């Protein structure tokens, strides 16, 4: 349940943001979460609701947007979406670091992010 540590950092920084300004109410946050992270949207939302109770940002919404993965291959210069593992028996496609063009190991250039993108509030 590492979502809890992520959300606790999130709530802390939003509360700091609010404390430093004259903000009446925070309406919502938009989060960008990379495909290569191990973060579940539902769990992030659940933790957010639980952790914001009885705080100044209680009642605000958390929107989570998934950032698709992208890889870069140093061997054949491929840049783009990763190769997905179809036989992984997973409910969602599993991104790999196998280069879709040459099959050697590529590097992920996108998909590891977890960022607060925007904050919406009333002054």
């Amino acid at each position: 349940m590492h979502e809890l540590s992520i959300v606790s950092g999130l709530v802390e920084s939003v509360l700091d943001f609010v404390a430093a300004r004259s903000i009446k109410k925070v309406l919502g946050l938009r989060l960008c979460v990379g495909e290569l992270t191990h973060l579940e949207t539902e769990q992030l939302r659940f933790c957010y609701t639980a952790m914001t109770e009885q705080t100044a940002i209680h009642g605000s919404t958390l929107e989570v947007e998934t950032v698709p993965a992208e890889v870069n291959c140093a061997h054949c210069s491929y840049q783009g979406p990763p190769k997905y593992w179809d036989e992984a028996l997973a409910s969602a496609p599993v991104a790999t670091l196998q280069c879709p063009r040459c099959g050697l190991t590529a590097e992920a250039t996108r998909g590891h992010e977890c960022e607060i993108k925007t904050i919406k509030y009333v002054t």
Partner: protein
Amino acid sequence: MIPTIQASPEETYDIELEQSLLQANAKLAAENRAQLDHHGVTAIDFMGAIGSGKTTLITRLVEKFKDQLNLAVFNGDATTVDDVNLIASQGVPTVQLATVNGCHLDANLVGKALLKTDLKKVDLILIENIGNLICPAEFPLGSRARVVVVSVTEGPYMVKKHPHMFLGADLVVINKTDLAEVMGVKVADLARDAHTLKPDLKVVPTSCKTGAGLDEVAAALLAVTKSGVHA
């Protein structure tokens, strides 16, 4: 008359923040790494499920390295001290990292353990992460290499079920190979799955019981350590 625009008393703002939530840990990890590099110390992080054999593997590696390197071991453990006591009995400086309810080590805890370690007297630090194949992936510690330990007793699907852990690994140890046959698990299948995720991943099958593969793991980690010393 000078035109005046006055903000209405209640106004809604939607502003960009672009603030990374993993950044705080990543920054501390980079600081740990800089501190380690400054002293020519290499840290290696061992991750894997509960019961995969992380502690036993570390005790075997301590036996192998003890006479040629100055070691320290950090033991991440939610509550118990059995593991750290076992390692300490080998005469190696140890630090227990008790996460209490935490499911992973983070760079902050490791930074605190570094403060309790005389880095001038250490070449290699082996860090045992919390038994968990999911959460630690998101939290780099500042180590030079990340080892994932998976054992055949966990069944044939461990790699498939935890892809993110393997995507971030530098070395995969497939442990307890002496039990592969009785478990009906093919070591080659686990290795193939790891290579499907990351073709150049180094995979070493081991048995801490028979000693098979341990020299190869030691050699791989020694190569990483040497590269650190001369960096």
